[in-house]
């Protein structure tokens, strides 16, 4: 499967997001944000930030343990949020990904590094050689934990988009957004891609997109797709 974009358009990065849709005042964060998705015949957890053992994760777990079909499930959350699993799942679903490997320390620039440990969340991009050793030490807590390195192809740019129930405000990411919802079942996500000079998009990572950060267009789209109470 090839995911392309119109290279006559400017690439979208996170700084553009404010333009796409103005963030609205957040909903009461104590609300569970679980709604019914009639098209799929299941519940959907729209918290948007599903970190392991945090309340939105537990809400999905509660639904699953009581036999109610919900997405994302705890397993789907980990498949999406743990970068090497995200990439393996993409490969198995014929979605293009960059070359990647796991390491305790050794890597070669240029790469994007994602930590695999409970204490570090942020990824790091290393474009030039020279600071590999210190970067590896810091990303692995002195080589205790692993990290996932994705090789950045020559001429590639790192781009992001916001995926809302398989929809994206920016047309060039529509197909990729639909793939995220259909294959990963993550309703709200910020997705990182590598955009190659020939227009190909490679799936790279998926992160939280809290409901409170959605813009008016995105909420409007959600309202057209979900029921906040099962009818």
């Amino acid at each position, binding site marked *: 499967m090839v995911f392309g974009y119109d290279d006559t358009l400017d690439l979208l990065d996170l700084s553009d997001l404010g333009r796409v849709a103005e963030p609205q005042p957040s909903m009461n964060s104590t609300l569970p944000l679980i709604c019914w998705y009639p098209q799929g015949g299941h519940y959907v957890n729209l918290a948007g930030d599903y970190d*392991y*053992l*945090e*309340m939105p*994760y*537990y809400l999905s*777990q509660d639904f699953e*343990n009581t036999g109610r079909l919900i997405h994302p499930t*705890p*397993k789907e959350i*980990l*498949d999406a949020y*743990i970068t*090497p*699993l995200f990439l*393996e*799942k993409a490969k*198995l679903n014929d979605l293009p990904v960059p070359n990647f*490997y*796991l*390491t*305790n320390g050794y890597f070669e620039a240029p790469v994007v590094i994602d930590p*695999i*440990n*409970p204490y570090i969340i942020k990824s790091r991009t290393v474009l030039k050689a020279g600071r590999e050793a210190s970067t590896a030490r810091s990303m692995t807590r002195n080589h205790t*934990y*692993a990290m996932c390195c994705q090789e950045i192809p020559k001429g590639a740019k790192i781009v992001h988009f916001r995926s809302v129930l398989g929809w994206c405000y920016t047309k060039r990411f529509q197909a990729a957004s639909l793939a995220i919802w259909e294959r990963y079942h993550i309703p709200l996500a910020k997705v990182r891609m590598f955009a190659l000079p020939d227009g190909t998009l490679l799936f790279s990572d998926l992160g939280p997109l809290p409901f409170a950060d959605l813009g008016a267009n995105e909420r409007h789209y959600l309202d057209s797709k979900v029921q906040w109470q099962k009818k």
Partner: protein
Amino acid sequence: MAKKIGIYVERNTISNGDQMAGIMRFAHHAQRMGHRSDFLFRADMFKIPEYDALFIRAFTDPLNSAYVAARTAQMYGVRVLDDPDSILICCDKVNMYRHLMNQSVPIPETLFLDETQLTLAHAQTVFGQLGNPVVLKAPNGSFSMYVEKVENAEEFVKVGKKYFRRSDRIVAQRFVRSQFDWRVGMLGGEPLYVCRYSIPKKHWKIATYQPDGKTIYGPVKALSIDKVEPKLLEVAKKAAAAIGNGLYGVDLKQVGDEYIVVEVNDNPTINAGEEDSQAPELYERLVRYLVQ
């Protein structure tokens, strides 16, 4: 037919001599049964799809790389111990106790708390319901870490606050006193080995972490499966079945003639000379399970 078995290890596994010796015995048995076994490290993760089976001997928390190994194996149809579904349940005590409760497995009376319940007033409600002392557990502790006994409301709030930094739910449980814990190793729904983990004198759990960094363990005594009470094995079977069909270490306490389950662990310890000492077929059964 000869199968390729990968043994996924990490450096914490290698640094433990008894555990490593257990793994070497497993590898030896696999070869004797006509299979090939290779050690796989983190950097070898990409090789997992080439194997027929994967035996994980590493710390399996879902945020660590051993979970990546387990889930990768499952994605590629490679038979794996521990399977990621069991890891997801056992590594989160909230999920684990919920599974046990759903199948009516006898456990100490248990409550799940969220942060809004971490108040002096609510502490009294919890003591009223569970008695005093109460055991608080963070959901993602292992080897008796992040398990503490609290005896008053102030301690309840202090310990709870510490644990809520690790997760949005914690476990409160009735305290059950005992001199030892039973550990029944279970594989594919059947008992694999039985041990008694003694609780060190002046302590209340099998491993106690001292402020100076030392850990105090009690002695381990293995028993033959046919020499223990059938009721112990029945309860262990029921607990394992509530989780899945893999390899588990079921911890139980004996109260009079009854047995109650205090925990079900994935990736249970298998140390040479301890867990295997009264279970002569332990390694063969593990190999058979993986290659079937």
